Protein backbone atom coordinates (compact mmCIF):
# COMPACT_ATOMS: atom_id res chain seq x y z
CA UNK A 1 0.00 0.00 0.00
CA UNK A 2 1.37 3.38 -1.02
CA UNK A 3 1.67 6.16 1.50
CA UNK A 4 -1.06 8.44 0.07
CA UNK A 5 -3.48 5.54 -0.06
CA UNK A 6 -2.63 4.62 3.47
CA UNK A 7 -3.13 8.22 4.55
CA UNK A 8 -6.54 8.26 2.92
CA UNK A 9 -7.53 5.01 4.61
CA UNK A 10 -6.38 6.39 7.87
CA UNK A 11 -8.38 9.57 7.52
CA UNK A 12 -11.42 7.53 6.47
CA UNK A 13 -11.10 5.50 9.62
CA UNK A 14 -10.65 8.72 11.49
CA UNK A 15 -13.83 10.01 9.93
CA UNK A 16 -15.70 6.86 10.85
CA UNK A 17 -14.41 6.99 14.40
CA UNK A 18 -15.47 10.60 14.77
CA UNK A 19 -18.86 9.75 13.30
CA UNK A 20 -19.34 6.93 15.77
CA UNK A 21 -18.51 9.30 18.56
CA UNK A 22 -20.34 12.39 17.27
CA UNK A 23 -23.48 11.07 15.64
CA UNK A 24 -25.52 10.40 18.79
CA UNK A 25 -24.70 13.83 20.17
CA UNK A 26 -25.41 15.46 16.86
CA UNK A 27 -28.82 13.86 16.87
CA UNK A 28 -29.58 15.02 20.39
CA UNK A 29 -28.40 18.57 19.81
CA UNK A 30 -30.22 18.77 16.50
CA UNK A 31 -33.41 17.62 18.21
CA UNK A 32 -32.98 20.17 20.98
CA UNK A 33 -32.46 22.92 18.44
CA UNK A 34 -35.45 21.79 16.44
CA UNK A 35 -37.60 21.84 19.57
CA UNK A 36 -36.51 25.40 20.24
CA UNK A 37 -37.29 26.40 16.68
CA UNK A 38 -40.67 24.69 16.79
CA UNK A 39 -41.50 26.47 20.00
CA UNK A 40 -40.60 29.74 18.35
CA UNK A 41 -42.93 28.96 15.46
CA UNK A 42 -45.68 28.20 17.93
CA UNK A 43 -45.12 31.52 19.67
CA UNK A 44 -45.32 33.36 16.38
CA UNK A 45 -48.31 31.55 14.88
CA UNK A 46 -50.32 30.81 18.02
CA UNK A 47 -52.74 33.67 17.48
CA UNK A 48 -53.68 32.21 14.12
CA UNK A 49 -54.75 29.03 15.85
CA UNK A 50 -56.94 30.74 18.37
CA UNK A 51 -54.48 30.86 21.24
CA UNK A 52 -54.68 34.44 22.45
CA UNK A 53 -51.35 36.16 22.27
CA UNK A 54 -50.95 39.55 23.91
CA UNK A 55 -48.18 40.41 21.50
CA UNK A 56 -50.08 39.41 18.36
CA UNK A 57 -49.48 42.79 16.78
CA UNK A 58 -45.75 42.23 17.00
CA UNK A 59 -45.62 38.54 16.11
CA UNK A 60 -47.44 39.52 12.95
CA UNK A 61 -44.38 41.26 11.56
CA UNK A 62 -42.29 38.13 12.10
CA UNK A 63 -44.71 35.93 10.20
CA UNK A 64 -43.49 36.86 6.71
CA UNK A 65 -39.96 35.86 7.67
CA UNK A 66 -41.13 32.48 8.88
CA UNK A 67 -43.81 31.85 6.30
CA UNK A 68 -41.71 29.48 4.21
CA UNK A 69 -41.16 27.27 7.19
CA UNK A 70 -44.82 27.09 8.01
CA UNK A 71 -45.53 23.93 6.01
CA UNK A 72 -42.51 22.07 7.42
CA UNK A 73 -43.58 22.99 10.85
CA UNK A 74 -47.21 21.93 10.81
CA UNK A 75 -46.42 18.60 9.18
CA UNK A 76 -43.81 17.90 11.82
CA UNK A 77 -46.30 18.88 14.51
CA UNK A 78 -48.38 15.96 13.33
CA UNK A 79 -50.87 17.96 11.31
CA UNK A 80 -50.96 16.74 7.78
CA UNK A 81 -52.71 19.82 6.48
CA UNK A 82 -52.51 23.39 7.56
CA UNK A 83 -54.24 23.70 10.93
CA UNK A 84 -55.73 27.03 9.95
CA UNK A 85 -59.01 27.09 8.14
CA UNK A 86 -58.16 30.30 6.42
CA UNK A 87 -54.55 29.61 5.76
CA UNK A 88 -54.04 26.69 3.48
CA UNK A 89 -50.48 26.25 2.47
CA UNK A 90 -50.97 22.73 1.20
Amino acid sequence: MKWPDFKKKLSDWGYLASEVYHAPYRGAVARAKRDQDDLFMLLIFSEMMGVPNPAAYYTLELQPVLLERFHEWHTRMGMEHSPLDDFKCC
Partner: protein
Amino acid sequence: MDHLFDRRIIFVGGKGGVGKTTTAGALALMAGEAGRSTLLVSTDPAHSLGDVFDIRVGNKETPLAPNLAGLEIDPEAEAERHIATVKMSMKSLVAPKMYGEIDRQLELARHSPGTVEAALLERMADLMSDAKSRFDLLIFDTAPSGHTIRLLSLPEVLSAWSDGMLGQRDRSRRLGELLSVFGRDHSREDEFGMIGGSKEEADDSRDGRIQDILLTRRRKFHRARALLTDPAVTAFLMVLTAERLPILETRKTLDLLAKFDVPVAGMIVNRLLPPEADGGFLQERRAQEQEYRDEIDRTFAHLQRVYLNLLSHDVHGVETLLEIGRAILRQLGQAREDLGAAEAP
Protein backbone atom coordinates in the same frame (compact mmCIF):
# COMPACT_ATOMS: atom_id res chain seq x y z
CA MET B 1 -39.35 70.57 39.53
CA ASP B 2 -39.73 74.07 38.20
CA HIS B 3 -42.54 74.53 35.80
CA LEU B 4 -45.06 72.10 34.38
CA PHE B 5 -44.11 73.21 30.88
CA ASP B 6 -40.47 72.32 31.45
CA ARG B 7 -41.45 68.73 30.81
CA ARG B 8 -41.64 67.44 27.29
CA ILE B 9 -44.61 65.14 27.73
CA ILE B 10 -47.76 65.75 29.77
CA PHE B 11 -50.50 63.17 30.14
CA VAL B 12 -53.93 64.34 31.22
CA GLY B 13 -56.00 61.48 32.57
CA GLY B 14 -59.01 60.66 34.68
CA LYS B 15 -62.42 59.08 34.69
CA GLY B 16 -64.71 59.69 31.74
CA GLY B 17 -66.50 63.02 31.67
CA VAL B 18 -64.52 64.87 34.35
CA GLY B 19 -63.06 67.39 31.89
CA LYS B 20 -59.83 65.88 30.60
CA THR B 21 -60.11 67.33 27.13
CA THR B 22 -60.94 70.79 28.45
CA THR B 23 -58.01 70.71 30.86
CA ALA B 24 -55.62 69.41 28.24
CA GLY B 25 -56.82 72.02 25.76
CA ALA B 26 -56.45 74.81 28.30
CA LEU B 27 -52.92 73.77 29.20
CA ALA B 28 -51.96 73.39 25.56
CA LEU B 29 -53.19 76.90 24.78
CA MET B 30 -51.25 78.31 27.71
CA ALA B 31 -48.11 76.48 26.61
CA GLY B 32 -48.52 77.83 23.11
CA GLU B 33 -49.02 81.31 24.45
CA ALA B 34 -45.86 80.92 26.54
CA GLY B 35 -44.00 80.35 23.28
CA ARG B 36 -43.63 76.59 23.52
CA SER B 37 -44.56 74.91 20.29
CA THR B 38 -47.06 72.33 21.43
CA LEU B 39 -48.81 69.31 20.00
CA LEU B 40 -52.06 68.30 21.66
CA VAL B 41 -52.79 64.63 21.02
CA SER B 42 -56.10 62.92 21.72
CA THR B 43 -55.89 59.16 22.25
CA ASP B 44 -59.49 58.64 23.26
CA PRO B 45 -61.25 56.55 20.60
CA ALA B 46 -64.21 58.90 21.01
CA HIS B 47 -62.38 62.09 20.12
CA SER B 48 -63.70 65.40 21.30
CA LEU B 49 -60.62 67.55 20.83
CA GLY B 50 -61.88 69.12 17.64
CA ASP B 51 -65.25 69.85 19.25
CA VAL B 52 -63.67 71.84 22.08
CA PHE B 53 -61.74 74.00 19.64
CA ASP B 54 -64.49 73.96 17.05
CA ILE B 55 -62.00 72.85 14.43
CA ARG B 56 -62.05 69.65 12.44
CA VAL B 57 -58.88 67.82 13.55
CA GLY B 58 -58.65 64.15 12.59
CA ASN B 59 -55.65 61.88 12.15
CA LYS B 60 -53.20 64.58 11.06
CA GLU B 61 -51.53 67.49 12.79
CA THR B 62 -53.88 70.44 12.47
CA PRO B 63 -53.09 74.00 13.58
CA LEU B 64 -55.39 75.06 16.43
CA ALA B 65 -53.82 78.29 17.65
CA PRO B 66 -50.44 80.05 17.41
CA ASN B 67 -47.77 77.53 18.47
CA LEU B 68 -50.38 74.83 18.93
CA ALA B 69 -51.35 71.90 16.74
CA GLY B 70 -53.86 69.16 17.45
CA LEU B 71 -53.97 65.50 16.47
CA GLU B 72 -56.64 62.87 16.97
CA ILE B 73 -54.98 59.47 16.64
CA ASP B 74 -57.01 56.98 14.67
CA PRO B 75 -55.79 53.59 15.94
CA GLU B 76 -57.80 51.70 13.33
CA ALA B 77 -55.95 53.50 10.54
CA GLU B 78 -52.63 52.80 12.27
CA ALA B 79 -53.44 49.09 12.58
CA GLU B 80 -54.47 49.06 8.95
CA ARG B 81 -51.14 50.50 7.91
CA HIS B 82 -49.16 48.04 10.04
CA ILE B 83 -51.04 45.09 8.58
CA ALA B 84 -50.67 46.41 5.05
CA THR B 85 -46.88 46.38 5.53
CA VAL B 86 -46.97 42.79 6.77
CA LYS B 87 -49.21 41.81 3.86
CA MET B 88 -46.78 43.30 1.37
CA SER B 89 -43.79 41.44 2.70
CA MET B 90 -45.76 38.19 2.93
CA LYS B 91 -46.95 38.50 -0.64
CA SER B 92 -43.39 38.95 -1.83
CA LEU B 93 -42.67 35.48 -0.44
CA VAL B 94 -45.54 33.30 -1.61
CA ALA B 95 -47.16 32.25 -4.83
CA PRO B 96 -49.92 34.56 -6.09
CA LYS B 97 -52.54 31.89 -5.56
CA MET B 98 -51.99 32.33 -1.84
CA TYR B 99 -52.75 36.05 -1.89
CA GLY B 100 -56.41 35.46 -1.07
CA GLU B 101 -55.50 33.35 1.95
CA ILE B 102 -53.10 35.96 3.24
CA ASP B 103 -55.67 38.72 2.88
CA ARG B 104 -58.23 36.71 4.78
CA GLN B 105 -55.84 35.68 7.53
CA LEU B 106 -54.56 39.17 8.12
CA GLU B 107 -58.07 40.56 8.08
CA LEU B 108 -58.68 38.36 11.13
CA ALA B 109 -55.54 39.67 12.77
CA ARG B 110 -56.78 43.20 12.31
CA HIS B 111 -59.85 42.42 14.37
CA SER B 112 -58.11 40.39 17.03
CA PRO B 113 -58.18 41.90 20.51
CA GLY B 114 -55.22 44.09 21.31
CA THR B 115 -54.36 45.01 17.75
CA VAL B 116 -55.92 48.46 17.88
CA GLU B 117 -54.45 49.07 21.30
CA ALA B 118 -50.99 48.09 20.13
CA ALA B 119 -51.35 50.33 17.11
CA LEU B 120 -52.29 53.24 19.35
CA LEU B 121 -49.34 52.61 21.63
CA GLU B 122 -47.07 52.39 18.60
CA ARG B 123 -48.18 55.78 17.38
CA MET B 124 -47.84 57.32 20.84
CA ALA B 125 -44.35 55.88 21.25
CA ASP B 126 -43.36 57.22 17.84
CA LEU B 127 -44.68 60.65 18.75
CA MET B 128 -42.89 60.59 22.09
CA SER B 129 -39.53 59.82 20.56
CA ASP B 130 -39.80 61.69 17.25
CA ALA B 131 -41.85 64.79 17.98
CA LYS B 132 -38.95 66.33 19.87
CA SER B 133 -37.56 67.79 16.67
CA ARG B 134 -40.78 69.59 15.80
CA PHE B 135 -42.45 70.33 19.14
CA ASP B 136 -41.27 71.47 22.55
CA LEU B 137 -44.19 69.91 24.34
CA LEU B 138 -46.54 67.00 23.79
CA ILE B 139 -49.81 66.96 25.69
CA PHE B 140 -51.79 63.72 25.60
CA ASP B 141 -55.49 63.95 26.23
CA THR B 142 -55.95 60.33 27.23
CA ALA B 143 -58.89 57.98 27.22
CA PRO B 144 -60.56 57.15 30.57
CA SER B 145 -58.08 55.84 33.15
CA GLY B 146 -58.25 52.07 32.82
CA HIS B 147 -57.46 52.19 29.16
CA THR B 148 -54.56 54.57 29.67
CA ILE B 149 -52.99 52.60 32.47
CA ARG B 150 -53.02 49.55 30.30
CA LEU B 151 -51.33 51.50 27.55
CA LEU B 152 -48.66 52.80 29.88
CA SER B 153 -47.97 49.33 31.22
CA LEU B 154 -47.63 47.81 27.76
CA PRO B 155 -44.02 48.88 27.15
CA GLU B 156 -42.97 47.03 30.29
CA VAL B 157 -44.94 43.90 29.45
CA LEU B 158 -43.74 43.93 25.87
CA SER B 159 -40.08 44.48 26.73
CA ALA B 160 -40.38 41.30 28.73
CA TRP B 161 -41.94 39.63 25.74
CA SER B 162 -39.22 40.75 23.31
CA ASP B 163 -36.54 39.78 25.84
CA GLY B 164 -38.07 36.33 26.06
CA MET B 165 -38.22 35.96 22.31
CA LEU B 166 -34.62 37.08 21.90
CA GLY B 167 -33.55 34.67 24.64
CA GLN B 168 -35.31 31.88 22.84
CA ARG B 169 -33.56 32.74 19.57
CA ASP B 170 -30.27 32.86 21.43
CA ARG B 171 -30.74 29.34 22.77
CA SER B 172 -31.46 28.12 19.27
CA ARG B 173 -28.34 29.85 17.97
CA ARG B 174 -26.14 28.32 20.67
CA LEU B 175 -27.47 24.87 19.89
CA GLY B 176 -26.69 25.57 16.24
CA GLU B 177 -23.12 26.41 17.14
CA LEU B 178 -22.83 23.26 19.19
CA LEU B 179 -24.17 21.34 16.27
CA SER B 180 -21.39 22.62 14.03
CA VAL B 181 -18.85 21.29 16.51
CA PHE B 182 -20.30 17.86 16.00
CA GLY B 183 -20.01 18.20 12.26
CA ARG B 184 -23.16 19.85 11.09
CA ASP B 185 -25.14 18.22 8.35
CA HIS B 186 -25.96 21.25 6.24
CA SER B 187 -27.91 19.33 3.65
CA ARG B 188 -30.74 18.83 6.15
CA GLU B 189 -31.14 22.46 7.09
CA ASP B 190 -33.06 25.25 5.52
CA GLU B 191 -32.16 28.90 5.28
CA PHE B 192 -33.04 29.53 8.92
CA GLY B 193 -30.42 27.06 10.01
CA MET B 194 -33.40 25.10 11.24
CA ILE B 195 -33.22 21.33 10.95
CA GLY B 196 -35.78 19.62 8.84
CA GLY B 197 -36.05 22.27 6.20
CA SER B 198 -35.49 21.74 2.55
CA LYS B 199 -33.60 24.79 1.32
CA GLU B 200 -29.87 25.13 1.43
CA GLU B 201 -29.38 28.89 1.52
CA ALA B 202 -27.24 30.66 4.11
CA ASP B 203 -28.57 29.94 7.59
CA ASP B 204 -27.61 33.22 9.07
CA SER B 205 -29.60 35.63 6.95
CA ARG B 206 -33.02 34.52 8.15
CA ASP B 207 -31.96 34.28 11.76
CA GLY B 208 -30.44 37.72 11.38
CA ARG B 209 -33.70 39.17 10.10
CA ILE B 210 -35.66 37.70 13.00
CA GLN B 211 -33.10 39.08 15.39
CA ASP B 212 -33.28 42.52 13.76
CA ILE B 213 -37.05 42.73 13.98
CA LEU B 214 -37.05 41.69 17.62
CA LEU B 215 -34.23 44.05 18.55
CA THR B 216 -35.93 47.00 16.86
CA ARG B 217 -39.05 46.21 18.85
CA ARG B 218 -37.21 45.96 22.11
CA ARG B 219 -35.39 49.23 21.52
CA LYS B 220 -38.70 50.95 20.90
CA PHE B 221 -40.30 49.54 24.06
CA HIS B 222 -37.33 50.41 26.19
CA ARG B 223 -37.19 53.95 24.87
CA ALA B 224 -40.91 54.51 25.46
CA ARG B 225 -40.55 53.15 28.96
CA ALA B 226 -37.52 55.29 29.72
CA LEU B 227 -39.36 58.44 28.59
CA LEU B 228 -42.51 57.53 30.52
CA THR B 229 -40.73 57.05 33.81
CA ASP B 230 -38.38 60.03 33.62
CA PRO B 231 -39.73 62.78 35.92
CA ALA B 232 -37.72 65.39 34.01
CA VAL B 233 -39.54 64.46 30.80
CA THR B 234 -42.98 63.20 31.70
CA ALA B 235 -45.73 64.41 34.00
CA PHE B 236 -49.11 62.86 34.58
CA LEU B 237 -51.99 65.14 35.58
CA MET B 238 -55.10 63.57 37.05
CA VAL B 239 -58.43 65.28 36.56
CA LEU B 240 -61.35 64.45 38.84
CA THR B 241 -64.53 65.90 40.24
CA ALA B 242 -65.42 66.00 43.95
CA GLU B 243 -67.62 62.93 43.77
CA ARG B 244 -67.33 59.43 45.09
CA LEU B 245 -66.60 57.40 41.97
CA PRO B 246 -63.98 59.71 40.44
CA ILE B 247 -62.14 59.75 43.78
CA LEU B 248 -62.10 55.96 43.96
CA GLU B 249 -60.95 55.63 40.41
CA THR B 250 -58.28 58.27 40.86
CA ARG B 251 -56.90 56.41 43.83
CA LYS B 252 -56.68 53.20 41.85
CA THR B 253 -55.07 54.98 38.93
CA LEU B 254 -52.47 56.63 41.14
CA ASP B 255 -51.60 53.27 42.68
CA LEU B 256 -51.03 51.82 39.25
CA LEU B 257 -49.03 54.82 38.07
CA ALA B 258 -46.82 54.39 41.12
CA LYS B 259 -46.44 50.72 40.33
CA PHE B 260 -45.21 51.54 36.84
CA ASP B 261 -43.05 54.44 38.08
CA VAL B 262 -44.89 57.07 36.05
CA PRO B 263 -44.30 60.47 37.66
CA VAL B 264 -47.47 62.31 38.72
CA ALA B 265 -47.33 66.11 38.70
CA GLY B 266 -50.62 66.83 40.44
CA MET B 267 -54.36 66.72 40.23
CA ILE B 268 -57.07 69.03 39.08
CA VAL B 269 -60.33 68.98 41.02
CA ASN B 270 -62.83 70.16 38.48
CA ARG B 271 -66.39 71.51 38.56
CA LEU B 272 -66.63 72.65 42.15
CA LEU B 273 -69.75 74.60 43.01
CA PRO B 274 -68.78 78.28 43.11
CA PRO B 275 -69.55 80.15 46.35
CA GLU B 276 -71.95 82.50 44.58
CA ALA B 277 -74.25 79.65 43.57
CA ASP B 278 -77.24 79.87 45.88
CA GLY B 279 -80.50 78.09 46.66
CA GLY B 280 -81.36 75.31 49.11
CA PHE B 281 -80.60 72.53 46.65
CA LEU B 282 -77.16 73.83 45.81
CA GLN B 283 -76.54 74.43 49.51
CA GLU B 284 -77.05 70.72 50.15
CA ARG B 285 -74.87 69.77 47.19
CA ARG B 286 -72.15 72.03 48.50
CA ALA B 287 -72.21 70.38 51.92
CA GLN B 288 -71.87 67.01 50.23
CA GLU B 289 -69.12 68.34 48.01
CA GLN B 290 -67.22 69.66 51.00
CA GLU B 291 -67.07 66.14 52.42
CA TYR B 292 -65.52 64.84 49.25
CA ARG B 293 -63.18 67.80 49.07
CA ASP B 294 -61.96 66.97 52.56
CA GLU B 295 -61.51 63.39 51.51
CA ILE B 296 -59.49 64.48 48.47
CA ASP B 297 -57.30 66.72 50.63
CA ARG B 298 -56.71 63.87 53.05
CA THR B 299 -56.13 61.10 50.55
CA PHE B 300 -54.01 63.01 48.08
CA ALA B 301 -52.20 65.30 50.52
CA HIS B 302 -48.85 64.47 48.92
CA LEU B 303 -49.90 65.83 45.50
CA GLN B 304 -50.29 69.34 44.20
CA ARG B 305 -53.99 70.08 43.84
CA VAL B 306 -55.73 72.65 41.68
CA TYR B 307 -59.38 73.56 42.28
CA LEU B 308 -61.57 74.76 39.45
CA ASN B 309 -65.11 76.03 39.79
CA LEU B 310 -68.05 74.97 37.73
CA LEU B 311 -68.72 77.57 35.06
CA SER B 312 -72.12 79.02 34.34
CA HIS B 313 -71.65 78.34 30.63
CA ASP B 314 -70.24 75.64 28.37
CA VAL B 315 -66.53 75.48 27.74
CA HIS B 316 -66.39 76.40 24.13
CA GLY B 317 -63.76 78.33 22.26
CA VAL B 318 -60.36 79.72 23.00
CA GLU B 319 -61.32 82.49 25.47
CA THR B 320 -62.84 80.20 28.08
CA LEU B 321 -60.01 77.72 27.69
CA LEU B 322 -57.44 80.42 28.26
CA GLU B 323 -59.27 81.50 31.39
CA ILE B 324 -59.18 77.94 32.74
CA GLY B 325 -55.54 77.55 31.76
CA ARG B 326 -54.57 80.70 33.64
CA ALA B 327 -56.43 79.51 36.74
CA ILE B 328 -54.59 76.17 36.64
CA LEU B 329 -51.14 77.69 36.21
CA ARG B 330 -51.78 80.33 38.86
CA GLN B 331 -52.74 77.69 41.40
CA LEU B 332 -49.85 75.41 40.47
CA GLY B 333 -47.48 78.36 40.96
CA GLN B 334 -49.18 79.20 44.26
CA ALA B 335 -48.91 75.62 45.46
CA ARG B 336 -45.22 75.61 44.67
CA GLU B 337 -44.65 78.79 46.63
CA ASP B 338 -46.55 77.36 49.58
CA LEU B 339 -44.51 74.21 49.35
CA GLY B 340 -41.32 76.24 49.18
CA ALA B 341 -42.40 78.31 52.21
CA ALA B 342 -43.27 75.17 54.15
CA GLU B 343 -39.89 73.62 53.43
CA ALA B 344 -37.97 76.79 54.31
CA PRO B 345 -36.78 76.77 57.92
